[in-house]
């Protein structure tokens, strides 16, 4: 845990839970993230073993002022989750940055106006930093992590990458259309466990309640998010505390357009 909290404090963290008592990492138990085949719901969520303690919310956290301060964070999350095309630009800048807008445009195959619209929005949301002192301007983005331990919900760049893939991968698009985002995250977790040898593809199908061939299809379709995430997402081990070093995935060194290693100061 020491290592985890160390890497967290150096980075901005977005919460949808309390701000005042923001660092929940002391309570964050890795055991809550281990696969529990009896508690995965059909929608891909995982049932909590116990209801959240009532003191999770109190007068202080429910102060209108606090809620208002937290509002932009909540809206940021909602917007990223609902706009995979926007999430895709965020993930690209986060992993490949610093990058200039023309690179974003070319690599992601976006029009100039769309690129600037997305970049402006991400800057407004505080997710992307734009350095205007250079020509062309340079964009960078800090990785974000959102954890709601009681549901649980965990959103990291890897998760955003997975949902952004629906913009370019018909298999991911089909899966999200049919089953929704929650189940895509469940499939991502299942795919990670599978590539670590901890589950068969058919077990994933039955765990998340999709057809066997659909599970097989989505497990392979999510490979890019896992392969890039384990190298460049500093919060990868929050999603895979048990298996983050064990996955058998293609080596990014062999892939020409992979992000440069230097873009991740932690490794």
């Amino acid at each position, binding site marked *: 845990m020491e290592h985890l909290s160390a890497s967290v404090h150096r980075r901005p963290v977005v919460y949808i839970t309390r701000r005042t008592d923001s660092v929940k990492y002391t309570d964050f138990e890795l055991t809550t993230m281990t696969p529990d085949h009896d508690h995965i719901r059909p929608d891909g969520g995982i049932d909590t073993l116990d209801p959240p303690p009532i003191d999770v919310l109190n007068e202080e956290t429910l102060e209108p002022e606090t809620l208002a301060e937290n509002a932009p964070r909540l809206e940021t999350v909602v917007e990223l989750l609902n706009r995979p095309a926007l999430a895709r630009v965020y993930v690209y800048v986060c992993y490949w940055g610093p990058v200039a807008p023309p690179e974003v445009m070319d690599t992601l195959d976006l029009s100039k106006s769309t690129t600037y619209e997305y970049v402006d929005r991400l800057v407004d949301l505080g997710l992307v930093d734009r350095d205007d002192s250079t020509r062309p301007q340079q964009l960078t983005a800090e990785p974000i992590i959102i954890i709601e331990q009681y549901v649980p919900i965990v959103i990291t760049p890897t998760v955003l990458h997975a949902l952004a893939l629906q913009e370019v991968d018909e298999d991911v698009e089909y899966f999200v259309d049919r089953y929704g985002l929650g189940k895509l995250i469940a499939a991502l977790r299942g795919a990670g466990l*599978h590539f670590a040898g901890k589950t068969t593809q058919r*077990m994933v199908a039955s765990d998340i309640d999709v*057809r*066997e*061939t659909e599970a*097989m299809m989505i497990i392979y379709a999510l490979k890019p998010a896992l392969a890039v995430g384990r190298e460049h997402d500093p919060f990868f081990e929050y999603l895979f505390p048990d298996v983050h070093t064990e996955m058998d995935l*293609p080596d990014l060194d062999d892939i020409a357009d992979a992000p440069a290693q230097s873009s991740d100061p932690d490794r």
Partner: protein
Amino acid sequence: MGRDTPLTAEQDVLVDANIFYAIGRPSNPQYQRFRRAIQHAGVVCKLPRRVIGELGGPETDRVRTALDEGWAEIIDAPSPTDGDAVAASDIARRTIANETDQAEHEVEKTDAILAGLAIQYLRDRSTTGVVVLTDDQPARKGIENAVRAQGYTDAITVYGLADIIGDDPGDSMRLI
């Protein structure tokens, strides 16, 4: 490209459904490499109906293309009834449970049955050899263990996708 595959035309190649998802869509270079390897070896991928599962959505095109092009066929492999074959499925199930830290009843039946199907297939037909192809690591270990335990290593070989077309050079993967 001119890579040698371990497959020969005398063997019956039983293929698990996951192979068709590991190679991606027909437009993917991996898919094309696999098709070339299969056609070059002069074999037809036999997909037991039991392991192909219910096909319905857009995931069907990969299998459909192979069937239409004649390098894959769906077969009705008989359920394991032979003693060795039944025992093989049990061993596969135990191995998979062990590999994945799951209770045996959590192991999907279909994951375990391929080992039994392969032995039954071999016993029913006097073929020179059977190859089982699967890209699922825990499932593969289950089959390998069962084949070894039942003494069929000379007649049944288990391969993964990389054994047929080499490691994925990464050119088939779009990162973002």
